[in-house]
């Protein structure tokens, strides 16, 4: 009886009923499900381990440690300033790239993408060569009494350098998604180009822009390579959370774990926000 049931479920009878292709399809489904579980476990296990190890090591006690508070404050402060700069500079630039053709647009596009591809360390060296005390522009600034490298300003510069492309890319897509017919309709109703931009294009693209800004904020928050080379690693001045994790790893693991948990929490919040906004973006889509 058992063997006949087994046979019915997995054996020749089933093959007879469903044919070879049915069995193959089932095997493929099982294989894909296994792959999915493995991939999820591969990501979930390290994150879960962070929590497990932190609980046993009382990592949260380090929340009041000056290294943690300084790094957290600096990271939030610089990442916020970075996002503001990225939005102010990036929004008109993305609109320009979405709506107009100009000579050298291809080159500009490639340059914009470069910091995404370039290793952050290379970005840091490049920034140092440009704005460092002996740098191409930095030497003139230094002569005028302005020093950027190894200051909090350098942290922001490094973060803007690496996170700008994330905003530019998303903002451009969001502007391209705004159908030109809305802008045309607004113009026939008497709105100038500037008014059209602020009252029609920008509001329709808002969710996409916010989602781009959140991505840029996340990238700024996690920035390490360019910062450590261009801004150094000074607590309270240039030591952001990733740098503090790296430094604390060589001494107090609890501090590293505490900072890591804060960054994980931020990451979760960021993913959730982007998902909510993307959903809203599609809900507001004119085609619906």
């Amino acid at each position, binding site marked *: 009886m058992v063997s006949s049931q087994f046979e019915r479920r997995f054996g020749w009878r089933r093959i007879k009923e469903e044919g070879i292709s049915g069995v193959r399809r089932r095997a493929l489904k099982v294989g894909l499900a296994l792959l999915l579980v493995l991939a999820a476990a591969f990501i979930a296990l390290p994150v879960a381990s962070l929590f497990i190890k932190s609980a046993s090591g009382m990592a949260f006690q380090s929340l009041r440690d000056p290294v943690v508070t300084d790094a957290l404050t600096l990271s939030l402060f610089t990442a916020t300033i970075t996002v503001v700069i990225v939005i102010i500079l990036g929004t008109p630039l993305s609109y320009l790239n979405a709506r107009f053709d100009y000579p050298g647009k291809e080159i500009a596009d490639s340059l914009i993408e470069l910091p995404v591809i370039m290793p952050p360390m290379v970005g840091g060296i490049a920034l140092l060569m440009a704005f460092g005390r002996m740098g191409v522009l930095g030497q003139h600034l230094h002569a005028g009494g302005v020093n950027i490298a190894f200051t909090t300003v350098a942290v922001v510069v490094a973060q803007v350098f690496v996170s700008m492309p994330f905003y530019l890319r998303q903002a451009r897509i969001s502007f391209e998604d705004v159908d030109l*017919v809305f802008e*045309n*309709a607004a113009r026939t*109703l*008497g709105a100038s180009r500037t008014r059209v931009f602020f009252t029609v294009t920008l509001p329709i693209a808002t969710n996409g822009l916010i989602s781009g800004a959140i991505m840029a904020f996340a990238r700024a928050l996690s920035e390490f390579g360019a910062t450590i080379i261009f801004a150094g690693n000074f607590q309270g001045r240039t030591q952001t959370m990733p740098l503090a994790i790296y430094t604390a790893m060589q001494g107090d693991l609890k501090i590293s774990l505490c900072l890591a948990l804060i960054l994980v929490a931020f990451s979760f919040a960021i993913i959730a926000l982007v998902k909510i906004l993307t959903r809203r973006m599609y809900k*507001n889509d*004119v085609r619906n």
Partner: protein
Amino acid sequence: MLEIDVKKKLRDFDLDVSLNVPEGEILMLVGENGCGKSTLLNMVAGLLSPDSGEITLAGEPLFDSSLRINLSPEMRNIGYVFQNYALFPHLSVYENVAFGLRTRRLSRQKIEVKVKEQLEAFDLWGMRDAKAVNISGGQKQRTALARALAIEPRLLLLDEPLSALDIRRQAEMRKELRILIRNFGVPSIVVTHDLRDVVSIGDMVGLMEAGKVIHSGPAEEVFNAKPLTGAVMPTRTRTTRLARPATPRSS
């Protein structure tokens, strides 16, 4: 009176159109997809520039290549109902209709009175707070008309105003649209695919083919027009990004 005499080189053909629309009359522009009807409307609205020629409205040049006059769309005061209506998706029905009035820097009270008047005339007052994306096809069409008329335009352009409606609604709206446009009393151009629209709505017809007006005359003569005699009425086959699936029609 609207006088059009324009030329523009397009990808597949040269557009070369001469047309006049007297005050208060409705010109129906008919032709197959891609024959230049919407391009012509966009040139009249100022959204596209002709290569040469003139567009004059009530004696005032909107475009004149010889005098280098080209008024921007916002300066032309033209009511344009776009195909699929182009209602601003982030704004309510009320704000859509108020949009053109706000650009004219009218007082808040004047705007409120004017918008209320329009919304009531189009039976939209009850749904003034609904987002423009959440209303039905017929309501969208009425909102688009209310929005275009609220600015008291000197000229009306309607690009396939009935195409996004179901067939029953189309029949009802043909009559209403004619009365509405006639009452407004400004020259109007209505682009359509459907010859039933021509006779029900229009005073005059312009039949376009590859950028040229190959026949023009009184609307009721459209069925006798040489290019159409024995020909199959144009059918809708195109679906645009914003359009509902097209309903095939036959003669």
